[in-house]
């Protein structure tokens, strides 16, 4: 009885699996998206696309592109850093035309994968690669941070402003140094306190720690805090609301997140950069190499809208506009912390 039953059951299972495997193997490239269209894959960093900040900005950009162009768009949110590379390789393996890595941490991964798949195109945000099939999209965050630093220094009543960075890495030092220089330009006696959430990828994803640091800074007198910390920045927003202080958002326009408490946001138009690169690809104009976005092209800047127009007096805005013009003309040199 058993003798017949065992092979029978086993055979059924194996046949089923083989069937699925066979059909799946054959159609894998197709199952992964219509190969006749331009296919774009995007790999978010560990913050995920809903961080309302950096990743969210990138997501907005690709969504807009997906609406405007007939492309297949798929995204991956690996969640932990070790899974970034497999996700990117999956896109490459099934033949995606453009694969975008969000965040400097993916630079070596993009480089490695782009080397293995030289016929496909890649883009990396905040990172630099000199491979011909990789477009490096970088921003002059220090210049934008300079401007919000000025606003912070003009707004504070205590003479103390804070900075909460995400991961303690050179890229975020760029924000910090620009911010501090801007604040000092507006008020030479200003005190700037800075803290970082952590030293690992997890630092982007720890709102609790972000809030803790913000509360500590508030305790030391800070009444404006610039949060350049991805998801962790949301904790700073919480603290600002709770203690009735101001916070400055980052990357995306975050003015709406806690209306009345968000002084402004240092926007980094990742969305525009991403949209642009997809548009280039669709129009057969894709070029590797470095693409810099700064103040003149609106790649970085301050966010003004109905949520914060009452928070910043016109004379402050005027001063900021002047500084912006001077930076563009090269009359003010803001230190780029990554170029030392």
């Amino acid at each position, binding site marked *: *009885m*058993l*003798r017949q039953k*065992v*092979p029978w*059951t*086993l055979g059924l*299972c194996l046949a*089923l*699996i083989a069937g*699925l*495997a*066979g*059909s*799946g*193997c*054959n*159609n*894998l490239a197709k*199952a*992964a*998206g219509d190969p006749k269209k331009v296919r774009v*894959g995007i790999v978010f960093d560990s913050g995920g696309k809903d961080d309302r900040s950096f990743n969210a900005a990138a997501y907005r950009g690709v969504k807009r592109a997906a609406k405007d162009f007939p492309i297949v768009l*798929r*995204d*991956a949110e690996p969640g*932990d*850093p*070790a*899974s970034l590379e*497999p*996700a990117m390789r*999956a*896109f490459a*393996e*099934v033949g995606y035309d453009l694969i975008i890595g969000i965040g*400097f*941490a993916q*630079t*070596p991964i993009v480089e490695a994968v782009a080397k*293995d798949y030289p016929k496909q195109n890649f883009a990396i945000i905040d990172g630099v690669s000199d491979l011909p099939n990789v477009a490096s999209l970088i921003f002059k965050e220090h210049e934008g941070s300079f401007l919000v630093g000025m606003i912070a220094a003009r707004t504070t009543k205590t003479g103390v402003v804070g900075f909460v960075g995400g*991961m303690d*890495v*050179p*890229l975020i030092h760029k924000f910090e140094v620009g911010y501090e220089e801007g604040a000092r330009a507006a008020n030479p006696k200003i005190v700037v306190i800075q803290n970082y959430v952590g*030293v*690992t*990828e*997890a630092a982007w994803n720890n709102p609790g720690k972000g809030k803790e640091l913000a509360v500590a800074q508030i305790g030391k007198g800070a009444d404006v805090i610039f949060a350049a910390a991805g998801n962790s920045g949301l904790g700073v927003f919480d603290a600002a609301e709770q203690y009735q202080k101001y916070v400055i958002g980052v990357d995306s326009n975050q003015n709406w997140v806690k209306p009345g408490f968000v002084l402004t946001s240092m926007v980094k138009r990742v969305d525009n950069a991403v949209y642009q690169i997809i548009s280039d690809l669709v129009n057969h104009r894709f070029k590797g190499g470095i693409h810099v976005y700064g103040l003149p092209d609106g790649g970085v800047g301050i966010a003004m809208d109905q949520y914060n127009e009452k928070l910043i007096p016109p004379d402050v805005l005027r001063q900021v506009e002047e500084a912006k013009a001077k930076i563009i003309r090269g009359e003010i040199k803001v230190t780029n912390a990554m170029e030392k």
Partner: protein
Amino acid sequence: MALEREKSLMKGLRQLIFPLAAVLAAFVAGSFLVLAVGDSPLATYQLLIGSAFTWPDGIGYTLFYATPLIFTGLAVAVAFRCGLLNIGAEGQLYIASFATAWVGITFAGLPAILLVPLCCLAAVLAGGVWGGIPGVLKARFGAHEVITTIMMNFIAIALASYFTQYHYKPPGDAILETVPIGEGGHIARLGRFVPGLPERIPLNLSFLLALATCVLVYLFLWRTRWGYEIRATGASPAAAQYGGIATGRQIVLAMALSGALAGMVGINEVLGYRYRYYDSFSSGYGFTGIAVALLGRNHPVGVILASLLFGALLRGGLFVDIFTEHVSKDLVMVLQGIIILFVAAEAMFRDRFRGPFGRRIKGV
């Protein structure tokens, strides 16, 4: 003799039925989940299974993902054979991987013939010590290994992070990883020997090492006195003591061995894949190892099969996550969970259908 062999083959096949049924049932249950979120189960499973079996990438990656799971599955199985639940494979593999990288960095100049064995030794020793400590705590003070190994996990992960961040990170590097190990520490990727398998696929010699380790573990557990004494301790400590077995020593030995096996993940990770220590590289291999051992019935052959399954699920989960509209890779977690539930429930079923003469009844 031929009949004998056929009998034992049938016995082996019969062992497979329940796990297979569990896997099948999990897929059926999972398909409802897929329907509920609004995707097609057929397309989803085509992606899930198909992506795991394409040549060369699918098979290459499935085997690559299975490699660490074989090591951790064996680790959990060996401890379990001694009646111990080693939750600490995760910490053991972290500390061992770091130690492997440390040796690879510190003695970077050595030729491969020295550096590779030295690094492997570091992996085994570091894992063994890290696993042995909870063993000693259990044998000497009766501290429960579940608690101590969990705590040791935290310590291991934090320690490795700390040394990476403050002592071994390349200056200015945005990523938390150590500097690379010496060239002599690299072990070959299988792509070098297998035609059609590109070397970009990180499947490497440690996969073969994992298979060989399964054989060694089998021989150790069932053909040596130490293995016998470990298993006796696990089956009944009172009976083992009665037989003159120093159960405390077996506990320490089993835990150290378990840690060493978990530590061998470092060989795959550091010598075969990244050539450096990469912080938080393990996607819970140590914990998945528990599921692997459970599904594999704490037997090396079962561990290989279960590792292949879970390796395929890891690979397929990635594709399902990315290329379906709604289904996320959590589906794989759900599938794993259901499989484990079924397997755990099996013991109950078995007892329920056991006749009054226990297992003497052959036909049931």
